[in-house]
């Protein structure tokens, strides 16, 4: 995938790029990353890139405007809006199937839908009693299904052809975030719950992990070891802290650690900080380094093995609510939109929401080149 062009190539697209060039006092894009055209009208809750099986790069984003939009991201950085479909409520989770033909979307309307991109038809495949927060596609050796985690405290697995779940697991609390890297799945719930599942044969709970963090879970991402097997996960909380938990590793307790991030020191008093939530995390598919985005409007790149911070961005003027890498790690997408971290008073429906694309091939190389 060739490098993205500089922003100047992009300047001619659509009205959304209007003030792009003159970023004088405007901090909506301090990193001068490529802006996606026709971005959603309300906060973006989730982002997902197409898998490797699909040629090219397609990005889908679910937003609080009840829609899911799909763009094709071309090699030169141009983004072409392709399609969208509407839910009855804000969309909180999106996920691609492994062959890249379908997109699964989970919404506050308590349903999850399967959107066939070729035919642009969306059918409902899941139903919960409360908004569905996460949706993931599981491809196992002997089954394929969609996993949905909801605020009704259940984790359900759906064969897309049937309206009944093939399996439903009880969660201790509402599902806040989840990640799946076959054969491991991790679900983080309210009240600091953390459950690890194994997905071989059929999903089953492996264990409940004690969260290293003191506050509410916000996002979770599984990482892999050198052999591309999932061996642990990173957990982000509202407290500007991330905890790495290693599983299935001899010294798992010893190796697990936490670190602070997305905090800012105040100029006046030393020691007191502004603490921001970590809204999203994603591991680079090739390098295994971690990108995190927070309510402070920054994104950070980290090398967990070298325990080093690779990069911190300049703060955007809005929180960054979601992030995602494309399948080969060349593109890092992050969404700048209000995440409700300060309540309704700071919500401005007229504010533009952006999705930015950044070239991620170089900046995420691990420090030691492991």
């Amino acid at each position, binding site marked *: 995938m060739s490098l993205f062009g500089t922003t100047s190539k992009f300047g001619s697209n659509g009205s959304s790029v209007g003030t792009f060039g003159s970023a004088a006092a405007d901090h909506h894009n301090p990193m001068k990353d490529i802006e996606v055209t026709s971005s959603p009208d309300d*906060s973006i*809750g989730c982002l997902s890139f197409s898998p490797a099986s699909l040629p090219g790069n397609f990005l889908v984003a679910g937003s*609080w405007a009840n829609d899911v939009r799909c763009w094709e991201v071309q090699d030169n950085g141009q983004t072409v809006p392709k399609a969208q479909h509407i839910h009855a*409520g*804000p969309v*909180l989770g999106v996920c691609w199937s492994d062959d890249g033909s379908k997109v699964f979307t989970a919404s*506050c309307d*308590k349903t999850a839908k399967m959107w066939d991109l070729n035919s642009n038809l969306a059918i409902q495949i899941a139903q919960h*009693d*409360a*908004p569905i*927060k996460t949706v993931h596609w599981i491809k196992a050796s002997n089954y394929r299904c969609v996993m949905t985690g909801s*605020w*009704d405290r259940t984790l359900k697995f759906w064969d897309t052809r049937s309206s009944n779940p093939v399996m439903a697991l009880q969660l*201790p*609390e*509402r599902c*806040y975030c989840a990640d799946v890297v076959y054969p491991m799945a991790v679900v983080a719930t*309210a*009240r*600091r719950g953390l459950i690890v599942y194994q997905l071989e044969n059929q999903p089953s709970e492996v264990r409940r992990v*004690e*969260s*290293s*963090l*003191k*506050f*509410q879970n*916000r996002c979770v991402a599984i990482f892999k070891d050198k052999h591309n097997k999932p061996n642990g996960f990173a957990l982000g*909380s*509202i*407290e*500007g802290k991330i*905890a790495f938990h290693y599983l299935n590793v001899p010294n798992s*307790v*010893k*190796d*697990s*650690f*936490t670190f602070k991030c997305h*905090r800012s020191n105040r100029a006046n008093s030393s020691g*007191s*900080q*502004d*603490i*921001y*939530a970590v809204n999203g995390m994603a591991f680079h598919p090739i390098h295994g380094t971690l990108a995190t985005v927070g309510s402070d409007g920054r994104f950070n790149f980290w090398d967990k093995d070298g*325990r080093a911070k690779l990069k911190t961005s300049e703060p955007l003027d809005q929180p960054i609510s979601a992030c995602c890498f494309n399948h080969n790690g060349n593109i890092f997408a992050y969404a700048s939109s209000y*995440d*409700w*971290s*300060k*309540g*309704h008073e700071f*919500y401005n429906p007229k504010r533009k929401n952006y999705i930015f694309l950044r070239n991620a091939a170089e900046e995420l190389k691990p420090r030691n080149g492991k």
Partner: protein
Amino acid sequence: MTVCQFFLQGRCRFGDRCWNEHPGARGAGGARPPPASQQLSASNRRGWNASSQRYSNVIQPSSFSRSTPWGGSRGPDQASFGSSTGSGFGAAQRPFASLSSGDQDEQKLLEGIVKDVEVWESSGQWMFSAYSPLKTQPPVAGFTDISPEELRLEYHNFLTSNNLQSYLNSVQQLITQWKNRINQLKTINKSNRVALLPNLNNGVNQAAPALGFGSTQARMFGSSGSSKSVQNFSFKTSPGFAPATSGSPSVFGTLPALGAVPSAGSAVSASTPAFGFGKPQITSAASFSFKTPAASGFGSAGFSAAPTSLAGSPFGAAMALAFGGGTSVAGFGSPGSQSHTAFSKPSNNIFGSSSIPTSLPVSNVISATDKVLFTPKDQLTQEELEQFQSKKFTLGKIPLKPPPVELIHI
């Protein structure tokens, strides 16, 4: 994460910067002292850990005669602590080593809570989050876990139903409730730690937290039959409770009102109703705890009376502090006037604290918890009995069992 071995010995060079876990040391009381080799004076130790905080609680049991409370002036006491209690202590007090360290744990825990809470309040962090003082412990009661998305969804729902005002009111109530709880926790120290206990106890009741939003969460309040009784209780104890205005908003609206009552002092009774629903076994505990209006009174009662249902998480800190660690929350009107007897057992704490209405609930609870919190007189040796009866504990003879009920003067 791994526990720092150096920190446990009191000699971690990195202090705050250390990658490893310093149990309870985030601004809290510093390391547990090395068991027998306390040759380092306190100041020396401080020098080593420039960036870590107070290395206060060096050794406690020796401080029987000291009347200053833990929470207070620790600075000037530090040097004397370190040196006076130094080496002579280790051997002689071996039997109490676990007790003293438990006491320290608890002190650290409390300090940790205070510090965390202060940071939480000042940092602009998301308010509606569960909080655990130590990662291994369950969330402290009184805090609801609401994710920003849930709150936002409520906003949108209320917006579409043109009922924004009730949303705003509800949010305001939640905020007030949170602030009250934060203030409570900020002033927590040994003497009012009891306020934490029953709240921890009722932590389990928080399974269905304040999201009485909308219809889907209606179960919180009215749908499960068992909740009715709890509801009644809660209504009684929270005079400020505003009856429902309309449909779903009212469900939500009620919760914070209940939650806001903690400021009135009956911390537990207020927080539990809001959260006690949805889980059948909880209501038994909740209703049990409601019998006694006293906040702390049923802390312990709750423990013993409904051990199974509450046996889960909420105990976490409470148990560790009150029972498991065999520790002490000093300063509770323990026998004699010492506020720090390392051995004021949980019973003393719970009942001695000023925030507890003593008469009725105490007697209720006592009978229920006799075995756990108090030793019947006949199980005490003569020596122990004497110790309890004397004004001060004598070093070397401090009983390891809780005092008998009869000797407790509240």
